């Protein structure tokens, strides 16, 4: 079962993980900074409070499954998996390096990763297959698929959305990292996808909108089962580049790599955020 983490402990841990994520991207010389920072809190809640899976049960047939359809934000996933004990955090320094198993998108070479992703619009169909298999096996498995805004333009998602509702897959959860930006700019300008809640509801899904950086709200939304027979859509309102002032809601940080100065500034901001959180601890 997931460990017991308080909201405060998660917030403190998130600061450290944001440091590691930024260092990883700087070491790799490439990465998806903005989306990694926007999805990190969702991943923390999933791995600390929701998913019934651990390094020890990573191949248990009855485990919960996590599929990262927005595979480009692998840096956040690697960071969280390492922190949860799936592999040595020191390995994070090798991401994207010559002959490293840590490819720049999720790969089954790494313990805890269920399927190779990176091309968009693939995760939800795979999740439907996994949820169907779990139902056939009468397993308690829930399947969580993380998707991005820009990705929703891929038609294959809507094939899968339709199938999930057709089969009443109430153990399938689609989480949208709804940061409203993609590589070219605002999703509204590139290919508008609103009204999202109405769309998913019209496809037969049970829709919940939550603050994607609020641990309690995310936990509640993810752990409360949807009505029987309905797949669950979580529209997680997030901030691209969350936690670093000059990256927040700035499109160029989609795959921007911080310079040494920018990294120093970002780390200073994280240090300040940590000090503020610790001060709360003292005053509480």
């Amino acid at each position: 079962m997931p460990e017991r983490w308080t909201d405060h402990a998660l917030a403190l841990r998130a600061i450290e993980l944001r440091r590691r994520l930024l260092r990883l991207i700087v070491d790799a010389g490439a990465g998806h900074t903005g989306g990694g920072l926007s999805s990190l809190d969702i991943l923390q809640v999933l791995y600390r409070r929701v998913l019934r899976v651990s390094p020890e049960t990573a191949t248990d047939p009855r485990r919960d499954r996590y599929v990262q359809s927005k595979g480009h934000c692998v840096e956040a996933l690697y960071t969280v998996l390492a922190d949860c004990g799936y592999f040595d955090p020191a390995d994070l320094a090798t991401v994207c390096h010559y002959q490293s198993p840590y490819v720049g998108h999720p790969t089954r070479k790494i313990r805890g990763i269920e399927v190779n992703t990176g091309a968009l619009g693939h995760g939800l169909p795979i999740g439907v297959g996994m949820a169907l298999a779990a139902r056939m096996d009468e397993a308690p498995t829930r399947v969580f698929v993380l998707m991005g805004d820009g990705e929703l333009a891929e038609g294959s998602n809507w094939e899968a959305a339709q199938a999930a509702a057709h089969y009443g897959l109430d153990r399938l959860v689609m989480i949208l990292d709804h940061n409203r930006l993609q590589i070219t700019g605002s999703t509204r300008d590139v290919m508008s996808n609103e009204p999202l809640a109405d769309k998913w509801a019209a496809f037969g899904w049970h829709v919940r909108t939550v603050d994607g950086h609020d641990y309690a709200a995310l936990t509640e939304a993810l752990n409360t089962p949807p009505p029987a027979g309905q797949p669950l859509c979580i529209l997680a309102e997030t901030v691209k580049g969350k936690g670093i002032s000059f990256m927040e809601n700035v499109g160029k940080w989609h795959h921007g790599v911080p310079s040494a100065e920018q990294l120093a500034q970002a780390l200073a901001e994280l240090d300040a955020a940590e000090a503020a959180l610790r001060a709360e601890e003292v005053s509480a």
Partner: protein
Amino acid sequence: MSAPAPSMFTPAATEMAQQLGLSKGRANLEVFAETLQELATADRNVLAVTSDSRGSGKLGPFGQALPAQIVEVGIAEQNLVGITAGLALSGKKAFGVSPACFLTARSLEQIKNDIAYSNAPAVVVGISAGVSYGALGSTHHSLHDFAALRAIHNLTIIAPADNAETRAAVRLAAAAQRPVFLRFGKAAMFDLHSDAPDLANGRALTLRDGSDVAFIASGETVVHAVLAAGALAAEGISARVLSVPTIRPLDMTAVLAAARACRAVVTVEEHSVHGGLGEAVAATVLQAGVAVPFRIVGIPDEDTVTGAQADIFRHYGISMEGLSEVARSLLTPPAV
């Protein structure tokens, strides 16, 4: 709606089939569906996934007998392959079945990433492949699938020639712990094997020994090579026939043995002449340093002629007569 189906065989070819003692079997597609149902009856983890294709896949009886083991996804081939991968990654032996023309073009990326790259032990089944849907036009032809799939790492590619090869291929795919692509046509086939063939490790099957010309053929074209070998024998030309159900991994030993033993090599496939069996054999032979008169018979790089599968085969020389002629021309020294 359409003209009566033309015969695949001229009277002379039909006579040769009788002379060689070949008996008419069924469509490989029917044997595939029947074999899959046998496997699924014995193992509830064996599944069929269809895209409104259970009729064309001859899986109606499967669906009736084992409704809990067939997953319908509607007309959505990308979703079909993704779901098949998800099922396979969750311990199911899933066969994703859809017309080869759509399956290997529209959902090529899902085959590449979700199945091959992810090493999902799934089976992707392209039905009514090649020009099985002859007169319906190029939208319904799969003449690119060997080429496209050969360039994707980690995918076994099998196109059986007859009912016995089909049975063996389906069983092999079900037991494989790796990604497999199966390709079937829908015409009734002649039986080419007296015993159950062993397809392990991509083994090619020598149907007839010979030392003048080697026909190296795959899928529904193999019978025409067998008939051509019979016709050439009457002229004193000794033809070897190698059935290559497994395009990858290619049985390089058998291919090289044939190229070394014979004075000419003719490859035959229901596929574009680009990127399929012929070019795989050519690369194998040439890189081994074997120089031999060589011809790739398939569908040429042009707007494919309209007609039934039989018309298209005859038009492009995939026939006893056409293949015999190619062999003769390769074996005849050019006039000085």
